[in-house]
């Protein structure tokens, strides 16, 4: 994979001349992710990218769509606009291969984020920032196992979403036994609460609940108390409610991928590449997590999470 990186690096050098000539002060980058609109996780990524744009004085345009075909069309649109760099999350690398390679061959440097680390260099990206969802899931599973959970419920809030599936699959690996899946609808949290309650009522042996979204975590905690269950609640991602819940003990811990960095760092990398042809780590993935937030370290980041940057 090292030669691949070298190859793509030299391949895009010729193209970068033109984008550098387009004007140093006026760089503009496109960030195209597979998050759905209003998703709490991707909102932090967006915030990171936009903050970097502001800090570095470059333009950042954030777009997202969960459908890989739409995502590839958005990449194509960015290529047509002749941006100076593209940041892409690759939940489904095969589906994006075509359009990412087209961007690279048009001389536009690409940084991949979040998932797809193993294919990034192959497609000609200059770097990857992220944390594979599977590995994050493993972290959560291991921690749950440590806390003594055996029968864990993994609450999927968007059916068939690849990132969420990977988190649950990772959790199974980390836990050492299969987690039990439950489908809820993120857009109807009251029903989600009732559904989790139902599950806990009907299977009292559940001793751990892993939610994949911070908003679901709050209703899961409420559901556990409704059902009179002693299950430990853990979640991915943070928000003010989750911080408060960790502080009062109703949520045990949260897996923090520090996805703010997945937005911020690629912009830095693209700017450095555009102005200086720098790459980071020789194209090796830059890992952003997972970090675990629990009662031990929650107070330190409480304000940051409420502001939406953690």
């Amino acid at each position: 994979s090292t030669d691949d990186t070298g190859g793509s690096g030299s391949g895009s050098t010729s193209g970068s001349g033109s984008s550098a000539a387009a004007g140093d002060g006026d760089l503009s980058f496109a960030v195209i992710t597979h998050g759905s609109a209003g998703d709490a996780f991707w909102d932090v990524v967006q915030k990171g990218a936009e903050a970097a744009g502001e800090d570095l004085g470059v333009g950042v345009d954030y777009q997202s769509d969960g459908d890989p075909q739409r995502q590839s069309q958005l990449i194509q649109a960015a290529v047509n606009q002749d941006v100076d760099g593209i940041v892409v999350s690759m939940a489904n690398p095969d589906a994006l291969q075509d359009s990412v390679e087209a961007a690279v061959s048009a001389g536009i440097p690409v940084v991949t984020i979040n998932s797809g680390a193993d294919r990034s260099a192959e497609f000609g990206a200059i770097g990857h920032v992220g944390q594979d969802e599977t590995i994050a899931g493993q972290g959560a599973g291991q921690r749950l196992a440590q806390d003594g959970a055996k029968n864990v419920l993994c609450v999927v809030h968007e059916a068939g979403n690849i990132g969420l599936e990977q988190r649950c699959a990772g959790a199974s690996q980390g836990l050492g036994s299969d987690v039990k899946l439950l489908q809820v609808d993120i857009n109807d949290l009251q029903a989600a609460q009732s559904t989790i309650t139902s599950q806990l009522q009907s299977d009292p042996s559940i001793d751990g609940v892993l939610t994949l979204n911070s908003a679901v975590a709050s209703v899961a905690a409420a559901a556990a108390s409704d059902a009179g269950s002693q299950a430990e609640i853990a979640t991915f991602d943070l928000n003010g409610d989750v911080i408060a819940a960790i502080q009062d003990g109703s949520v045990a811990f949260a897996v923090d991928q520090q996805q703010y960095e997945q937005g911020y760092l690629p912009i830095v990398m693209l700017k450095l590449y555009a102005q200086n042809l720098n790459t980071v780590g020789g194209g090796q993935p830059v890992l952003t997590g997972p970090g675990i937030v629990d009662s031990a370290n929650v107070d330190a980041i409480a304000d940051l999470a409420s502001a939406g940057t953690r």
Partner: protein
Amino acid sequence: MRPARADERVAAVGLWRRLLVKPELGSLIGAVVILAFFSVQSSVFRSLSGVANWLDVASTLGIMAVAVALLMIGGHFDLSAGVMTGTTALTVGIVATELDQNIWVAIAASLVLALAIGFANGWLVTRTGLPSFIITLGTFLMLQGLNLGLTKLFTGTVIVRGIAEAPGFHSAQLVLASRVTLFGQEFRIAILWWLLATAVASWVLLRTRFGNWVFATGGDEVASRNVGVPAARTTITLFMTTAAAAWLVGSITAVRLTSVQANTGTGQELIYIVAAVIGGCLLTGGFGSAIGAALGALVFGMTQQGIVYLNWDADWFYFFLGAMLLLAVLSNRLVRRYAEAARR
């Protein structure tokens, strides 16, 4: 030989059969089939705590379904109904937390906004003559954008939090999100609101002039205008009613969860329509019942929770959900066919 009767052109038909043909009792059959199906297999489902649980799911869905049913009987759709529950909940949250108002002020502001949106929907539909499907799709998309854009503008995140700290919260909680103990089991107060909404809607539909106009406007708008029904006013009122229901559900959501996500309610509009259709509403308008819609919501709620109670594989959740819905409507259909086949 039939016995001599007042009118020899009418045959005697048992009460039972006559009841079965009524639309709302038709959907009752669906509900009973689903209830029996899950009750037999899961003791938790039929326990009081289980009942409270699935009634809760049906309640907020049911409030919306009843309003949407009225609108559908009046011949229109409201695709913005789902996202409007989010808009109203977010308004309650933002006014109460970011603008530091008393929660009741926030709830009132939310009502005004909802009625304004409902009015705009109805006015556009009646003025342009365009299908309500496309107009409310426009408002649906716009509200979805507004919900996200404004929430981020006000809070910097995709969630409005801290509603519990607003002044007046406890009284609001009492009215909108408390629990009532019955037979030793706590039930959510939203269930009461649901029953109330169903009763009022049924009364309006069957017993008032306005109800007559709703049926007429949905049945044949031109004909009803020709005999003097104020069709435009009726339509606008119906859209405002749906908006008001969305406001009630949104307020319940905001007060109950104390924090509101920007994408709350998106996609629910279809489920409301489904509940109304299970309850016997025609998509072409002019026919249906409020009680039917409430029962449709019950079918949906029971199915959604029942599948969880049976511990069926979550990957197949939607498969079972679809199969159960078909079971409910087909069994309803079969029984009514039998009832209509009558005395042969």
